[in-house]
C-alpha cells in the first residue's frame, strides 16, 4: 500500500509549542517522540526532541500519510536529509520569541535545500502575538535569498486550526502541481 510522508521541522522555544504538538494535533495514533533532558541553553524547555517525532494518518483506501518531526538542534542536522528524503512537503515552524528567529529559519532552509528544490513548503511563525518582530515579510525575504518561495503565516502549533491551515496551504501547492503541472 502506498505511503506518503510530510516533514515538520523548526525551532520550539517551550514545551508544547512546536513540532511534537503539531503532529499530535492531526495524527491518528498517539505520536511517538524521543524526548530527552534539554542541555541547550538556547531552548527554554525541560525536554527536547533528540530523535524524531512520528505520527500517521490512515487515508480512506488504506494508504498511510506518515508525519515526521525532526530534531531542531543543529547537532542533529545530519538527520534532516535522511528524514526529508521523498517527502511530499516540508512544514517549518519557527518560534519568534527566540533570540534570532531569522537566523534559525535560514539554517533550516539551508539544511533542507535538497528537499526544497522539489517539494513545497509552508512556514508557520509562532508566538507572534508577544513577539511581532521580525514580521512575516522578513521571513519571506530570507526565503527568497535561499531561492525558496513559500507561504509564511502566523501559526500557533497548540491550535489545531492553525496546524490544519498550514497543512492546507501545503496541500494546495501540491494540488497546483497535480492538476496544472502535467
Amino acid at each position: 500500500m502506498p505511503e506518503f510522508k510530510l516533514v515538520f521541522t523548526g525551532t520550539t522555544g517551550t514545551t508544547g509549542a512546536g513540532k511534537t504538538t503539531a503532529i499530535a494535533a492531526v495524527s491518528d495514533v498517539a505520536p511517538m517522540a524521543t524526548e530527552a533532558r534539554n542541555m541547550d541553553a538556547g531552548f527554554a524547555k525541560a525536554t527536547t526532541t533528540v530523535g524524531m517525532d512520528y505520527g500517521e494518518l490512515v487515508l480512506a483506501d488504506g494508504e498511510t500519510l506518515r508525519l515526521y518531526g525532526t530534531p531542531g538542534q543543529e547537532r542533529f542536522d545530519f538527520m534532516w536529509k535522511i528524514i526529508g528524503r521523498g517527502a511530499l512537503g516540508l512544514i517549518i515552524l519557527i518560534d519568534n520569541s527566540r533570540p534570532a528567529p531569522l537566523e534559525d529559519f535560514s539554517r533550516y532552509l539551508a539544511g533542507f535545500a535538497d528537499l526544497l528544490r522539489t517539494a513545497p513548503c509552508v512556514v508557520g511563525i509562532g508566538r507572534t502575538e508577544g513577539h511581532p518582530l521580525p514580521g512575516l515579510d522578513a521571513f519571506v525575504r530570507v526565503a527568497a535569498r535561499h531561492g525558496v518561495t513559500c507561504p509564511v503565516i502566523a501559526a500557533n502549533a497548540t491550535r489545531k486550526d492553525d496546524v490544519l491551515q498550514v497543512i492546507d496551504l501545503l496541500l494546495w501547492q501540491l494540488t497546483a502541481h497535480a492538476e496544472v503541472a502535467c
Partner: protein
Amino acid sequence: MVLRSLMRVIDGRLRQRWIATAVEGDLVVRSEDNRIALQPVGRGAYADATEHSRVLAFPFNYHTLEDALNELGDLLEQASPAMPSRIDRHAMATNSFRLRHWPESGLVATRERMRMSAVLLRADVSASELTRMIGCTAGECRQLLTDLHDAGLLSSEPLAAGKRDIQNPFLSSLTVRERVGVIGRIRARLGL
C-alpha cells in the same frame, strides 16, 4: 554596521535614496520627503508604530535594517504615482499568472486568498483555472489577481507559454488522477 547595512540595500535592490542620521544613540532613517522614519529604540522599549513609521528595537543586525528599509521602499513604491497598470480584461482571460513571492499578510487575509496564493506560488495558472480549483467566485479571483499585480508580485504570460513542469518525484511517478486522488484523500481525512 550601518554602513554595511546600507551597502547591502544599495546593492541592486534600492529603490529609494535613504539618509541615515546618528542622534544620541538612536538611528533615524527618513525617506527624502521625510514622510517615513525608522527609529530604533533601546532594548526592551517599543515605541508605538504609527501609520507612517516603523520602529526597530536594539540590538538589530544588518539583515533587520535591510529588511526594514526594503519594507519602507515597498510602501513608498505602492504610494507612488508610477504604479503598474491594472490587468486588462483581455490579459485576465488569456494569460497565466505566477506569484513571485508570498504577499504581505494584508493581501491574504482570508482563507480563499491564502489558498489561491499558495496555488499561484507553485504553478502558472489562468484566472479560470484558479477559480475552478479553489471554488471561489470569478470576481474574488480577479480581485486577488488585480491586487497582487498592483503590488508588483505577479508575473504574467500568454497561456501557451506557461511552464507546466512537475518536480516532486513522488507526485510525478503517479498519474494525474492518482495525484489528485491522494491529495483529496488527505484533505478529506483532515476535514479540509
